[in-house]
């Protein structure tokens, strides 16, 4: 059961968002991509986070999403640091990935989160960076600040969870993987572990404010290392590597919908189903969605959405 404020109260209390195309004419601020998360990696904060993750986040995820984890063995040979690159369909994804990581990774992992959503209010920034170890990442404009922070953390042997799509899926199908994870992997020479989350969208879809219990599957894939040679003989660039990461997540998605062997054979034949769905009209894309990605309830219509 959820408690919702009367709409008009919510509209009055919620501060409007700031257009991403406008510079904020403000003094040095501690919000958005500028939010300083260093305090959340201090020993006391890590200890507190450990308590929160073990006693709140994981039980919560277990009750709501009942995750089943596959491919954890791919992580065994890894020592870290590692970049976990996952598909993104729900705000719950962050909690699920963190809850399902082996403990040795979980204790030293940060999650790249949208600066304009998770860090747009001081209280939100403090809450999420403490509870899940989020760090702000700019997704609307080119900014080195988030990338520089993630790179420095990787060099300090922190693992980083990134959702390379840059935002939750709108229609259930995957979106193009941006180059952030690939760029970081190349820059810091760390492996990327593809992660696929199946069945999260029905639990807590975009636009919904209530949870519905469901079963979620989490699949870890073979780690990918940057620097593969391309046809020209040169080392692949970040864009090419991002494509490989997207392909690896697509393979895991196919595996989730069929089985490992069939997915492998389709991959070998270059017939892995498109991660981004068919190139067709909106209704045909919705029609073709696998059941695990369908939204099983209506969300608030646009006309009743709160104005901010």
């Amino acid at each position, binding site marked *: 059961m959820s408690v919702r404020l009367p709409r*008009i109260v919510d*509209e*009055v*209390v919620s501060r*409007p*968002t*700031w*257009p*991403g*195309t*406008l510079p904020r004419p403000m003094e040095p601020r501690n919000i958005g991509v500028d939010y300083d998360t260093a305090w959340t990696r201090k020993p006391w904060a890590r200890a507190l986070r450990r308590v929160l993750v073990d006693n709140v986040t994981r039980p919560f995820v277990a009750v709501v999403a009942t995750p089943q984890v596959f491919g954890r063995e791919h992580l065994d040979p890894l020592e870290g640091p590692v970049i976990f690159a996952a598909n993104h369909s729900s705000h719950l994804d962050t909690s699920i990935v963190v809850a399902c990581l082996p403990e040795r990774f979980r204790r030293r992992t940060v999650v790249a989160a949208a600066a*304009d959503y998770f860090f747009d209010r001081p209280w939100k920034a403090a809450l999420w960076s403490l509870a899940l170890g989020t760090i702000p990442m700019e997704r*609307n404009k080119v900014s080195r600040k988030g990338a520089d922070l993630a790179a420095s953390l990787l060099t300090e042997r922190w693992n980083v969870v990134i959702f390379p799509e840059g935002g939750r899926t709108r229609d259930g199908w995957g979106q193009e993987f941006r180059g952030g994870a690939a760029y970081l992997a190349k820059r810091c020479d760390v492996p990327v572990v593809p992660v696929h989350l199946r069945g999260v969208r029905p639990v807590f879809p975009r636009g919904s404010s209530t949870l519905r219990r469901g079963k979620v599957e989490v699949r870890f894939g073979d780690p990918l290392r940057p620097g593969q040679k391309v046809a020209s003989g040169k080392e692949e660039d970040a864009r090419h590597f991002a494509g490989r990461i997207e392909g690896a997540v697509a393979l895991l998605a196919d595996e989730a919908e069929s089985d490992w062997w069939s997915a492998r054979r389709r991959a070998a034949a270059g017939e892995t189903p498109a991660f981004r769905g068919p190139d067709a009209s909106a209704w045909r894309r919705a029609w073709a969605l696998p059941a695990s990605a369908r939204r099983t309830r209506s969300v608030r219509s*646009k006309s009743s959405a709160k*104005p*901010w």
Partner: protein
Amino acid sequence: MSPRPGFVLEVDRSTPPTLFWHGEGFRFEQLPEGSRVVYPPESLDGLADPDAAIRHALEHPVGDSAPLSALLKPEMRLTIAFDDVSLPLPPMRRPDMRQRVVEAVLDAAAAAGVDDVVLIAALALHRRMTDNELRHALGDRVFDAFAPHGLLLQHDAEDPAALVHLGLTEQGEDVEINRRAAESDLLVYVNINLSAMDGGHKSVATGLASYRSLKHHHNVRTLQHSRSLMDRHHSEMHSSNWRMGRLIKNAGVKIFQIESTLNLDMFPSQFSFLQKREWEWSLADRAGFHSTRLALDHTPPRLARQIFQSMLSPYAPTSVQAGEVEAVHDLTLENLHRQQLVAVEGQTDILTMGLPYLSPYNVNSIMNPILVACLGLGYFFNLYRGRPLVREGGVCIISHPTPWAFNPVHHPSYIDFFEQVLADTTDMFEIEKRYEQQFATDPWYIHLYRTSYAYHGVHPLYMWYWCAHALDYLGGVIIVGGDRAAVRRMGFKPASTLADALEMAEDIVGRGPSITHLHAPPLLVADVS
């Protein structure tokens, strides 16, 4: 902090919904990513001492003019003409700028011992002002000193005895203006310049003219070539007025022009959110907006209209200049542009605009469908300099309830025009040819114009012509949230939502159009490069 200039916002996913005026209400619309919104500059600070500024302007005129005090003689005939109820919008709080200026002029006249002074409201073909409206514009002191003695007149464009024909311009345009004004030793014109369209030679050549004179610039061909009405150097209507103004001057009419500009402080403090950018709304602004919207949702339209019509602006004057007409007007334009000009790069496929409850012709009245079209396509569309905001063949999307409602006292001929003429044709040239004479000379309309509070019979046609440039230029007009029958009657397309309107517009301008929203009022003039 000094007021910030206007600017163009590019909408992204973080941009909060944009406020659209929607008659006596508002819409909150999420514009597509990549759209542009043109925001007006912030309001400039008003003059610290307006009365001192007025006195200074009267004694230090610009152009070829002596100070006012030197022009005043005891035995002279002095006429003071002033703008009517159509300016400013919304009406300003007392003291109105006209009151301040007229009082200063009368102080000077009293000091000079001038006995023969008459005040004339420059109505042109507008409705007469009520006593309350005159009292509000001029103040109690002026009204009580002049009205009881029959010295506060309203221009009557249909009284042959009160008009004088001064001649023809080089292009054969009749110049016929108010006799008292023309035969006075000095005509002082007191102008409030809310937009660049007002003032200059238009004040006398239009405000004090007859239909015989007005028809030379209020016609389809002229208005189609007024590009824009806010840019007098490219406005055929202004060129005509300037020719007439020079003829009036050459005919020996001595005019002392006083023009004043206002800042953009248009709305009282409880509506301060209307002058702020949405992402900068404070808690008080949000509370004000949402409670207003909630209250309006449950308010009968008639009551909502009364509430909005009773709103008075806390405008402050930003400049006053007096003297020779053209020199004064050039200064006025500079001051107006300082407040209203916004640089915009390039045109757009679709122009959106939200229209408020008020146009120059429905003060204390109903904004009927013709006035909606006039405000959107005649005024807002023309808020540009250089090139229109929208490209040729583009689409204009207007948000307004556009009710099929008319004020029978103020707009009697509008009803007949809407019910009969527009049902027959919306083609302006056809209307001009077949109907203009009939409406202009109808004795009942003339009677109502002269004795009641009705706009002249031909006025609805002129308002329709006012859209000439826009309708000649645009590929389509869509009205969001309007009365469907009323919208269709005018030949426009109705849409329930902005999203629907944008979809419909794509049929005209093609897929993936560029969109620009004109965030007005407060007023702005887009300087489109």
